[in-house]
Protein backbone atom coordinates (compact mmCIF):
# COMPACT_ATOMS: atom_id res chain seq x y z
CA UNK A 1 0.00 0.00 0.00
CA UNK A 2 1.17 3.46 -0.84
CA UNK A 3 0.56 6.62 1.20
CA UNK A 4 -1.42 9.33 -0.58
CA UNK A 5 -3.32 12.45 0.31
CA UNK A 6 -7.07 12.30 0.01
CA UNK A 7 -8.55 15.67 -0.87
CA UNK A 8 -12.28 16.13 -0.44
CA UNK A 9 -13.78 19.29 -1.86
CA UNK A 10 -17.41 20.19 -1.22
CA UNK A 11 -18.63 23.16 -3.23
CA UNK A 12 -21.68 24.36 -5.14
CA UNK A 13 -22.59 22.28 -8.18
CA UNK A 14 -21.86 25.17 -10.51
CA UNK A 15 -18.62 26.10 -8.79
CA UNK A 16 -17.49 22.46 -8.76
CA UNK A 17 -17.24 22.51 -12.52
CA UNK A 18 -14.66 25.25 -12.10
CA UNK A 19 -12.81 23.13 -9.53
CA UNK A 20 -12.69 20.29 -12.05
CA UNK A 21 -11.13 22.75 -14.47
CA UNK A 22 -8.48 23.70 -11.93
CA UNK A 23 -7.71 20.03 -11.39
CA UNK A 24 -7.33 19.47 -15.11
CA UNK A 25 -5.10 22.49 -15.48
CA UNK A 26 -2.78 20.88 -12.96
CA UNK A 27 -2.75 17.50 -14.67
CA UNK A 28 -4.93 15.86 -12.05
CA UNK A 29 -6.79 13.52 -14.38
CA UNK A 30 -8.11 11.01 -11.85
CA UNK A 31 -10.86 11.94 -9.42
CA UNK A 32 -14.44 11.18 -8.44
CA UNK A 33 -17.53 13.32 -8.13
CA UNK A 34 -20.60 12.81 -5.96
CA UNK A 35 -23.51 14.90 -7.18
CA UNK A 36 -26.67 16.00 -5.41
CA UNK A 37 -24.95 16.77 -2.11
CA UNK A 38 -26.91 19.05 0.19
CA UNK A 39 -25.43 21.21 2.89
CA UNK A 40 -25.25 24.31 4.97
CA UNK A 41 -22.33 26.66 5.30
CA UNK A 42 -21.38 30.29 5.38
CA UNK A 43 -23.30 30.86 2.17
CA UNK A 44 -26.59 29.60 3.54
CA UNK A 45 -28.73 26.55 3.04
CA UNK A 46 -28.14 24.44 -0.06
CA UNK A 47 -31.27 22.34 0.18
CA UNK A 48 -30.95 20.56 -3.12
CA UNK A 49 -34.24 21.98 -4.34
CA UNK A 50 -34.88 24.13 -7.31
CA UNK A 51 -34.94 24.00 -11.04
CA UNK A 52 -31.25 24.58 -11.49
CA UNK A 53 -28.50 23.09 -9.42
CA UNK A 54 -27.89 26.53 -7.91
CA UNK A 55 -28.83 25.15 -4.51
CA UNK A 56 -26.89 21.92 -4.75
CA UNK A 57 -23.35 20.95 -3.85
CA UNK A 58 -20.96 18.38 -5.19
CA UNK A 59 -18.18 16.50 -3.50
CA UNK A 60 -14.98 15.95 -5.42
CA UNK A 61 -12.61 13.29 -4.18
CA UNK A 62 -9.00 13.23 -5.31
CA UNK A 63 -6.42 10.75 -4.13
CA UNK A 64 -2.93 11.82 -5.16
CA UNK A 65 0.66 12.12 -3.95
CA UNK A 66 1.31 15.07 -1.66
CA UNK A 67 3.48 16.80 -4.26
CA UNK A 68 0.60 16.81 -6.75
CA UNK A 69 -1.64 18.39 -4.15
CA UNK A 70 0.94 21.10 -3.53
CA UNK A 71 0.60 22.11 -7.16
CA UNK A 72 -3.10 22.94 -7.19
CA UNK A 73 -3.38 23.85 -3.50
CA UNK A 74 -3.04 27.61 -3.93
CA UNK A 75 -5.23 28.04 -7.03
CA UNK A 76 -7.87 25.94 -5.28
CA UNK A 77 -7.64 27.96 -2.07
CA UNK A 78 -8.05 31.18 -4.05
CA UNK A 79 -11.04 29.86 -5.91
CA UNK A 80 -12.80 28.55 -2.80
CA UNK A 81 -12.17 31.82 -1.02
CA UNK A 82 -14.25 33.54 -3.65
CA UNK A 83 -16.79 30.88 -4.53
CA UNK A 84 -17.28 29.11 -1.21
CA UNK A 85 -17.02 25.49 -0.21
CA UNK A 86 -14.60 23.48 1.86
CA UNK A 87 -11.51 21.39 1.19
CA UNK A 88 -10.47 18.68 3.62
CA UNK A 89 -7.13 16.91 3.35
CA UNK A 90 -6.27 13.63 5.04
CA UNK A 91 -3.81 10.77 4.89
CA UNK A 92 -4.82 7.54 3.24
CA UNK A 93 -3.15 4.36 2.13
CA UNK A 94 -3.79 3.31 -1.42
CA UNK A 95 -4.35 -0.40 -1.97
CA UNK A 96 -2.40 -0.25 -5.20
CA UNK A 97 -2.78 -2.68 -8.02
Amino acid sequence: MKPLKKIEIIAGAIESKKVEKILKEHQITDYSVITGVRGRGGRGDRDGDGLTDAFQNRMLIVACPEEDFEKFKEPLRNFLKKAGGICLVSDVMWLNH
Partner: protein
Amino acid sequence: MNEIFGNLLNPPILFFFLGILAVLIKSDLDIPQPIPKLLSVYLLLAIGFKGGAELAHSAVGPKMIFTLLTAVAMSFITPLYAFIVLRKKVSIYDAGAIAATYGSISAVTFITASSFLQDLEVAYGGHMVAAMALMESPAIIVGVFLIRKFTKDYGETSYGGIIKEALTNGSVVLLLGSLIIGMLVGEKEVVNMKPFTDYIFKGMLTLFLLDMGLLTGKRMRSLRNAGLYLLGFGVLMPLFNAVLGIGLSLLLQLEPGNALLLTILVASASYIAVPAAMRMSVPEANPGLYVPLSLAVTFPFNIIVGIPLYYQVILWIDKM
Protein backbone atom coordinates in the same frame (compact mmCIF):
# COMPACT_ATOMS: atom_id res chain seq x y z
CA MET B 1 -64.12 40.40 -16.01
CA ASN B 2 -65.31 37.61 -13.78
CA GLU B 3 -64.18 35.22 -16.38
CA ILE B 4 -60.75 36.79 -16.31
CA PHE B 5 -60.32 36.68 -12.56
CA GLY B 6 -61.57 33.13 -12.75
CA ASN B 7 -57.86 32.60 -13.46
CA LEU B 8 -57.57 31.95 -9.75
CA LEU B 9 -59.86 28.95 -10.06
CA ASN B 10 -57.55 27.35 -12.54
CA PRO B 11 -56.01 24.00 -11.53
CA PRO B 12 -52.41 25.16 -12.16
CA ILE B 13 -52.81 28.25 -9.94
CA LEU B 14 -54.68 26.36 -7.24
CA PHE B 15 -52.04 23.64 -7.12
CA PHE B 16 -49.42 26.36 -6.86
CA PHE B 17 -51.20 27.58 -3.72
CA LEU B 18 -51.41 24.02 -2.47
CA GLY B 19 -47.63 23.74 -2.81
CA ILE B 20 -47.05 26.90 -0.80
CA LEU B 21 -49.56 25.79 1.79
CA ALA B 22 -47.88 22.41 2.12
CA VAL B 23 -44.61 24.13 3.02
CA LEU B 24 -46.30 26.55 5.42
CA ILE B 25 -47.90 23.74 7.38
CA LYS B 26 -44.54 21.94 7.28
CA SER B 27 -45.87 18.99 5.30
CA ASP B 28 -43.30 16.53 3.99
CA LEU B 29 -44.83 16.65 0.51
CA ASP B 30 -42.01 16.97 -1.98
CA ILE B 31 -41.23 16.40 -5.63
CA PRO B 32 -37.55 15.57 -5.75
CA GLN B 33 -35.14 16.18 -8.60
CA PRO B 34 -35.08 15.33 -11.47
CA ILE B 35 -38.90 15.29 -11.70
CA PRO B 36 -39.10 19.10 -11.98
CA LYS B 37 -36.42 18.86 -14.67
CA LEU B 38 -38.53 16.39 -16.64
CA LEU B 39 -41.59 18.61 -16.34
CA SER B 40 -39.74 21.72 -17.43
CA VAL B 41 -38.13 19.95 -20.41
CA TYR B 42 -41.60 18.78 -21.39
CA LEU B 43 -43.15 22.25 -21.07
CA LEU B 44 -40.40 23.97 -23.06
CA LEU B 45 -40.50 21.34 -25.77
CA ALA B 46 -44.29 21.52 -26.04
CA ILE B 47 -44.58 25.32 -25.98
CA GLY B 48 -41.76 25.63 -28.51
CA PHE B 49 -43.20 23.01 -30.81
CA LYS B 50 -46.69 24.49 -30.70
CA GLY B 51 -45.28 27.96 -31.29
CA GLY B 52 -43.37 26.69 -34.30
CA ALA B 53 -46.41 24.94 -35.73
CA GLU B 54 -48.34 28.20 -35.32
CA LEU B 55 -45.55 30.16 -36.94
CA ALA B 56 -45.54 27.88 -39.98
CA HIS B 57 -48.93 29.34 -40.90
CA SER B 58 -48.17 33.00 -40.31
CA ALA B 59 -46.58 35.36 -42.78
CA VAL B 60 -43.46 37.13 -41.53
CA GLY B 61 -44.53 40.77 -41.47
CA PRO B 62 -42.99 43.97 -40.14
CA LYS B 63 -45.19 43.83 -37.04
CA MET B 64 -43.72 40.48 -36.11
CA ILE B 65 -40.19 41.71 -36.62
CA PHE B 66 -40.78 44.87 -34.61
CA THR B 67 -42.27 42.82 -31.80
CA LEU B 68 -39.15 40.66 -31.67
CA LEU B 69 -36.87 43.68 -31.79
CA THR B 70 -38.83 45.39 -29.03
CA ALA B 71 -38.66 42.27 -26.89
CA VAL B 72 -34.90 41.99 -27.26
CA ALA B 73 -34.41 45.70 -26.69
CA MET B 74 -36.37 45.51 -23.45
CA SER B 75 -34.18 42.72 -22.13
CA PHE B 76 -31.17 45.00 -22.67
CA ILE B 77 -32.84 48.09 -21.18
CA THR B 78 -34.66 46.68 -18.17
CA PRO B 79 -31.48 45.74 -16.26
CA LEU B 80 -30.20 49.31 -16.69
CA TYR B 81 -32.98 51.06 -14.84
CA ALA B 82 -33.40 48.20 -12.41
CA PHE B 83 -29.72 48.56 -11.53
CA ILE B 84 -30.08 52.31 -10.91
CA VAL B 85 -32.99 51.68 -8.56
CA LEU B 86 -31.12 48.96 -6.71
CA ARG B 87 -27.53 50.05 -6.37
CA LYS B 88 -28.10 52.46 -3.50
CA LYS B 89 -29.67 49.82 -1.34
CA VAL B 90 -27.72 46.66 -2.04
CA SER B 91 -24.16 45.80 -3.04
CA ILE B 92 -23.16 46.34 -6.64
CA TYR B 93 -22.90 42.58 -7.08
CA ASP B 94 -26.42 41.99 -5.82
CA ALA B 95 -27.77 44.95 -7.77
CA GLY B 96 -26.30 43.60 -10.98
CA ALA B 97 -27.58 40.10 -10.36
CA ILE B 98 -31.09 41.25 -9.49
CA ALA B 99 -31.11 43.62 -12.48
CA ALA B 100 -30.19 40.71 -14.77
CA THR B 101 -32.89 38.61 -13.15
CA TYR B 102 -35.61 41.15 -13.95
CA GLY B 103 -34.35 41.83 -17.44
CA SER B 104 -34.61 38.16 -18.30
CA ILE B 105 -37.87 36.21 -18.38
CA SER B 106 -39.71 33.40 -16.66
CA ALA B 107 -40.81 30.65 -19.02
CA VAL B 108 -43.37 29.26 -16.57
CA THR B 109 -45.03 32.67 -16.22
CA PHE B 110 -45.21 32.87 -20.01
CA ILE B 111 -46.60 29.34 -20.24
CA THR B 112 -49.17 30.07 -17.54
CA ALA B 113 -50.23 33.18 -19.46
CA SER B 114 -50.52 31.18 -22.69
CA SER B 115 -52.65 28.59 -20.91
CA PHE B 116 -54.77 31.48 -19.55
CA LEU B 117 -55.28 32.76 -23.10
CA GLN B 118 -56.14 29.31 -24.34
CA ASP B 119 -58.85 28.99 -21.69
CA LEU B 120 -60.34 32.27 -22.91
CA GLU B 121 -59.92 31.05 -26.50
CA VAL B 122 -57.79 34.05 -27.37
CA ALA B 123 -55.21 33.48 -30.13
CA TYR B 124 -51.52 34.43 -29.95
CA GLY B 125 -48.68 34.23 -32.43
CA GLY B 126 -46.02 31.53 -32.45
CA HIS B 127 -43.37 34.23 -32.73
CA MET B 128 -44.03 35.17 -29.11
CA VAL B 129 -42.25 31.94 -28.16
CA ALA B 130 -39.30 33.17 -30.20
CA ALA B 131 -39.50 36.47 -28.34
CA MET B 132 -39.29 34.58 -25.07
CA ALA B 133 -36.23 32.63 -26.18
CA LEU B 134 -34.52 35.79 -27.41
CA MET B 135 -35.16 37.63 -24.14
CA GLU B 136 -33.69 34.97 -21.90
CA SER B 137 -30.01 35.85 -22.24
CA PRO B 138 -29.21 39.49 -23.09
CA ALA B 139 -29.93 40.65 -19.54
CA ILE B 140 -27.22 38.34 -18.22
CA ILE B 141 -24.64 40.09 -20.35
CA VAL B 142 -25.87 43.54 -19.30
CA GLY B 143 -25.88 42.53 -15.63
CA VAL B 144 -22.29 41.28 -15.71
CA PHE B 145 -21.23 44.33 -17.69
CA LEU B 146 -22.74 46.67 -15.10
CA ILE B 147 -21.03 44.89 -12.23
CA ARG B 148 -17.66 44.94 -13.97
CA LYS B 149 -18.05 48.61 -14.80
CA PHE B 150 -19.03 49.74 -11.32
CA THR B 151 -16.62 47.53 -9.40
CA LYS B 152 -13.87 48.37 -11.88
CA ASP B 153 -12.96 44.72 -11.73
CA TYR B 154 -11.93 43.81 -15.25
CA GLY B 155 -10.33 40.64 -13.94
CA GLU B 156 -10.47 37.27 -15.53
CA THR B 157 -14.02 37.54 -16.84
CA SER B 158 -14.19 37.04 -20.58
CA TYR B 159 -17.32 38.46 -22.12
CA GLY B 160 -16.98 35.93 -24.88
CA GLY B 161 -17.47 33.19 -22.31
CA ILE B 162 -20.52 34.83 -20.78
CA ILE B 163 -22.10 35.52 -24.15
CA LYS B 164 -21.48 31.97 -25.27
CA GLU B 165 -22.90 30.60 -22.06
CA ALA B 166 -25.95 32.82 -22.42
CA LEU B 167 -26.60 31.70 -25.98
CA THR B 168 -26.06 28.00 -25.34
CA ASN B 169 -28.21 27.99 -22.26
CA GLY B 170 -30.19 24.75 -22.19
CA SER B 171 -33.65 26.26 -22.19
CA VAL B 172 -32.85 28.70 -25.01
CA VAL B 173 -31.55 25.84 -27.14
CA LEU B 174 -34.54 23.65 -26.35
CA LEU B 175 -37.06 26.43 -26.99
CA LEU B 176 -35.58 27.65 -30.25
CA GLY B 177 -34.90 24.10 -31.36
CA SER B 178 -38.48 23.02 -30.68
CA LEU B 179 -39.77 26.15 -32.40
CA ILE B 180 -37.82 25.44 -35.56
CA ILE B 181 -38.80 21.77 -35.50
CA GLY B 182 -42.46 22.74 -35.06
CA MET B 183 -42.13 24.95 -38.13
CA LEU B 184 -40.48 22.24 -40.22
CA VAL B 185 -42.54 19.14 -39.63
CA GLY B 186 -45.81 19.85 -41.41
CA GLU B 187 -49.43 19.67 -40.36
CA LYS B 188 -49.70 15.88 -40.18
CA GLU B 189 -46.93 15.55 -37.64
CA VAL B 190 -48.34 18.41 -35.60
CA VAL B 191 -51.61 16.51 -35.33
CA ASN B 192 -49.77 13.29 -34.43
CA MET B 193 -48.02 15.07 -31.58
CA LYS B 194 -51.14 16.79 -30.23
CA PRO B 195 -52.03 14.27 -27.52
CA PHE B 196 -48.54 14.77 -26.11
CA THR B 197 -47.99 18.48 -26.72
CA ASP B 198 -51.57 19.72 -26.23
CA TYR B 199 -54.00 17.39 -24.50
CA ILE B 200 -51.92 16.57 -21.44
CA PHE B 201 -50.25 20.00 -21.39
CA LYS B 202 -52.47 21.57 -18.77
CA GLY B 203 -52.04 18.58 -16.47
CA MET B 204 -48.29 18.71 -16.79
CA LEU B 205 -48.34 22.45 -16.11
CA THR B 206 -50.46 21.74 -13.04
CA LEU B 207 -47.95 19.22 -11.73
CA PHE B 208 -45.13 21.64 -12.41
CA LEU B 209 -46.87 24.50 -10.63
CA LEU B 210 -47.45 22.26 -7.63
CA ASP B 211 -43.69 21.83 -7.51
CA MET B 212 -43.14 25.55 -8.07
CA GLY B 213 -45.44 26.18 -5.12
CA LEU B 214 -43.37 23.90 -2.93
CA LEU B 215 -40.23 25.67 -4.05
CA THR B 216 -41.73 29.11 -3.61
CA GLY B 217 -42.83 28.19 -0.12
CA LYS B 218 -39.32 27.08 0.79
CA ARG B 219 -37.67 30.15 -0.70
CA MET B 220 -40.12 32.49 1.02
CA ARG B 221 -38.31 31.82 4.26
CA SER B 222 -35.12 33.42 2.99
CA LEU B 223 -37.02 36.62 2.24
CA ARG B 224 -36.59 37.73 5.84
CA ASN B 225 -33.06 38.79 4.93
CA ALA B 226 -34.29 40.79 1.98
CA GLY B 227 -35.77 43.82 3.73
CA LEU B 228 -38.79 45.87 2.80
CA TYR B 229 -37.09 47.80 0.04
CA LEU B 230 -36.37 44.67 -1.94
CA LEU B 231 -39.79 43.18 -1.26
CA GLY B 232 -41.36 46.35 -2.62
CA PHE B 233 -39.05 46.12 -5.60
CA GLY B 234 -40.28 42.56 -6.22
CA VAL B 235 -43.84 43.81 -6.66
CA LEU B 236 -43.37 47.29 -8.11
CA MET B 237 -40.76 46.37 -10.70
CA PRO B 238 -43.07 43.91 -12.53
CA LEU B 239 -45.90 46.42 -12.30
CA PHE B 240 -43.73 49.15 -13.79
CA ASN B 241 -42.45 46.75 -16.44
CA ALA B 242 -46.00 45.71 -17.25
CA VAL B 243 -46.99 49.33 -17.82
CA LEU B 244 -44.07 49.64 -20.22
CA GLY B 245 -45.04 46.38 -21.89
CA ILE B 246 -48.64 47.48 -22.35
CA GLY B 247 -47.49 50.83 -23.71
CA LEU B 248 -45.18 49.15 -26.20
CA SER B 249 -47.95 46.77 -27.26
CA LEU B 250 -50.12 49.80 -27.91
CA LEU B 251 -47.41 51.37 -30.05
CA LEU B 252 -46.96 48.13 -31.95
CA GLN B 253 -50.75 47.76 -32.26
CA LEU B 254 -50.60 44.19 -31.01
CA GLU B 255 -53.70 42.04 -30.68
CA PRO B 256 -54.73 41.37 -27.03
CA GLY B 257 -53.17 37.86 -26.93
CA ASN B 258 -49.76 38.97 -28.17
CA ALA B 259 -49.97 42.12 -26.05
CA LEU B 260 -50.44 40.07 -22.88
CA LEU B 261 -47.53 37.80 -23.73
CA LEU B 262 -45.17 40.67 -24.50
CA THR B 263 -46.24 42.36 -21.27
CA ILE B 264 -45.69 39.25 -19.21
CA LEU B 265 -42.26 38.71 -20.76
CA VAL B 266 -41.17 42.21 -19.80
CA ALA B 267 -42.80 41.97 -16.36
CA SER B 268 -41.48 38.52 -15.41
CA ALA B 269 -38.15 37.70 -13.84
CA SER B 270 -35.86 34.73 -14.34
CA TYR B 271 -35.08 32.12 -11.71
CA ILE B 272 -33.49 29.46 -13.86
CA ALA B 273 -31.10 30.78 -16.49
CA VAL B 274 -29.91 33.87 -14.65
CA PRO B 275 -29.08 32.31 -11.28
CA ALA B 276 -27.09 29.58 -13.01
CA ALA B 277 -25.15 32.11 -15.05
CA MET B 278 -24.61 34.53 -12.15
CA ARG B 279 -23.24 31.84 -9.86
CA MET B 280 -20.47 31.26 -12.34
CA SER B 281 -19.74 34.82 -13.46
CA VAL B 282 -20.49 36.75 -10.27
CA PRO B 283 -20.04 34.40 -7.31
CA GLU B 284 -20.01 37.47 -5.03
CA ALA B 285 -23.73 38.03 -5.57
CA ASN B 286 -25.97 36.31 -3.06
CA PRO B 287 -28.26 33.71 -4.68
CA GLY B 288 -30.20 33.60 -1.39
CA LEU B 289 -31.37 37.08 -2.33
CA TYR B 290 -32.06 37.24 -6.05
CA VAL B 291 -33.59 33.78 -6.39
CA PRO B 292 -36.22 34.15 -3.64
CA LEU B 293 -37.05 37.66 -4.81
CA SER B 294 -37.95 36.58 -8.33
CA LEU B 295 -39.30 33.18 -7.34
CA ALA B 296 -41.19 33.88 -4.14
CA VAL B 297 -42.38 37.44 -4.80
CA THR B 298 -42.50 38.34 -8.47
CA PHE B 299 -43.45 34.93 -9.85
CA PRO B 300 -46.53 34.45 -7.62
CA PHE B 301 -47.48 38.12 -8.05
CA ASN B 302 -47.42 37.76 -11.81
CA ILE B 303 -49.30 34.49 -12.13
CA ILE B 304 -51.92 35.31 -9.51
CA VAL B 305 -52.54 39.05 -9.84
CA GLY B 306 -50.51 40.08 -12.85
CA ILE B 307 -51.85 37.94 -15.68
CA PRO B 308 -55.55 38.73 -15.17
CA LEU B 309 -54.81 42.37 -14.25
CA TYR B 310 -52.59 43.10 -17.23
CA TYR B 311 -55.06 41.41 -19.54
CA GLN B 312 -57.97 43.41 -18.13
CA VAL B 313 -56.06 46.65 -18.73
CA ILE B 314 -55.17 45.56 -22.26
CA LEU B 315 -58.83 44.89 -23.00
CA TRP B 316 -59.91 48.25 -21.56
CA ILE B 317 -57.39 50.09 -23.71
CA ASP B 318 -58.35 47.98 -26.69
CA LYS B 319 -62.00 48.97 -26.29
CA MET B 320 -61.22 52.67 -25.99
